[in-house]
């Protein structure tokens, strides 16, 4: 019941070019963030530190350190295992090289848990066109994971992952910028969680069911297309809409939409966001199987269940260094706090602690995500 695969996907994110508009290297900056997730019996917190610095006019280097400290007594853990604590540590190093209107980026990410190691290598190219109104980005990443088990030192499985991305950023008017992203991710190897179990009807058991290990297919390919549009309102505020369509070979299909509003007020900036996500479940997900080994593949991971999630965000930022004046070597500085409230309704995954078999309530998750961070530009 450990954090699985997550860093690898995060690595793809980190690997993408930092500059949305190619032809310009990203600003030199430093960020120090503390994050905390609380919900569903799980607490995860830790720091993230990023430093980015140019070297000459053509090169920019970036490094990131990220730590998750996990304390978990989630619904899965309390029903089939014991609460645990663990850490996940991640390092990444990257470089952007600008030549004319082309930006090339390389990135390496390493993540280590007690029972899960991963490395990701990424490369992308961005090209500015039409007098810098259009930026086309092509990206590729390759990841290798090694999956272990904390209770079995001989257990070792491997995964590989490849990511292909095409992104188009387009300035449409002097007030409107849009992006279109298309992404394909393919996985191959040991994709299920070595700790998680599924349950099946078992008349011989006192509760009427028993557990057996999950078994996933060894391949997965997903496709996602996302469209964002951000508009500058006449009284200096910004509004952004986003939509994503997702589908994969496990037969999960999802729709995600969000609306964000940003309102500056003196040195402060306030942001509100609502995000909605709805998905079907994986073909081999069941809350309870009819018998042991009832199907070729089986899962009871609640994230593979049909579900609907809602996120409400409030964020406030304070510019403590006036960007018009600066302060010493610093051009700008901001202090930021955000709270995201996440509510997930699972449409098939049931809370087996809520009652006897047949009377169990559908599981619901409520979580709060806190972030506090300081950013400097120099």
């Amino acid at each position, binding site marked *: 019941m450990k954090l699985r695969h997550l860093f690898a*996907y995060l690595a793809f994110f980190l690997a993408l070019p930092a500059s949305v508009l190619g032809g310009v290297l990203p600003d030199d900056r430093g960020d120090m963030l503390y994050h905390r997730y609380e919900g569903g019996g799980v607490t995860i917190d830790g720091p993230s530190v*990023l430093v980015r610095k140019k070297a000459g006019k053509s090169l920019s280097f970036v490094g990131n350190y990220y730590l998750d400290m996990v304390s978990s007594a989630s619904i899965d853990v309390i029903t089939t295992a014991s609460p645990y604590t663990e850490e996940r540590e991640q390092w990444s190093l990257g470089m952007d090289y600008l030549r004319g209107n082309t930006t090339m980026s390389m990135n390496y990410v390493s993540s280590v848990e007690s029972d899960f190691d991963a490395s990701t290598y990424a490369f992308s190219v961005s090209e500015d066109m*039409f007098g810098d109104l259009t930026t086309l980005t092509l990206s590729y990443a390759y990841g290798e994971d090694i999956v272990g088990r904390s209770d079995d030192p001989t257990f070792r499985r491997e995964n590989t992952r490849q990511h292909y991305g095409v992104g188009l950023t387009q300035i449409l008017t*002097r*007030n409107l910028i849009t992006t279109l992203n298309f992404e394909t991710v393919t996985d191959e190897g040991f994709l299920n969680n070595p700790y998680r179990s599924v349950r099946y009807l078992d008349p011989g058991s006192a509760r009427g069911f028993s557990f057996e290990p999950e078994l996933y297919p060894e391949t997965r390919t997903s496709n996602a297309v996302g469209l964002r549009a*951000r508009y500058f309102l006449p009284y200096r505020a910004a509004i952004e809409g986003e939509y994503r*369509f997702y589908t994969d070979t496990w037969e999960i299909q999802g729709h995600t939409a969000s609306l964000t509003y940003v309102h500056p007020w003196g040195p402060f900036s306030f942001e509100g966001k609502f*995000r909605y996500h709805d998905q079907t479940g994986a073909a081999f997900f069941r809350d309870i199987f009819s018998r042991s080994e009832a199907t070729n593949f089986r899962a009871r991971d609640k994230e*593979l269940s049909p579900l609907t999630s809602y996120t409400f965000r409030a964020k406030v930022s304070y510019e403590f260094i006036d960007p018009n004046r600066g302060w010493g070597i610093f051009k700008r500085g901001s202090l930021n706090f955000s709270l995201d409230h*996440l509510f997930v309704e699972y449409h098939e995954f049931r809370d087996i602690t809520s009652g006897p078999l047949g009377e169990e309530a559908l599981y619901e998750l409520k979580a709060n995500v806190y972030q506090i961070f300081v950013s400097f530009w120099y």
Partner: protein
Amino acid sequence: MNTKFAKTGQILLALLAFYGLSACSVEPWVKPYERDRLADPIMALDGDPVSTAYIQHVYEAREGARGGEGAAGGGCGCN
């Protein structure tokens, strides 16, 4: 579903071909001196990359979908 994505891919390729062929001939309709609003920090598509990466990480941990949102992303099966 594959058909839908095949169509999406064809449209994408057509768009890319259009951009490629017309890149030399199109006059930028938003001049550099008209981009002051787009340069405002409130219009940054990813003004806080560390924060964005983290919250994407949370979404991907709690949902079955991955990629296509924000800059990029992914799914996960963690608890």
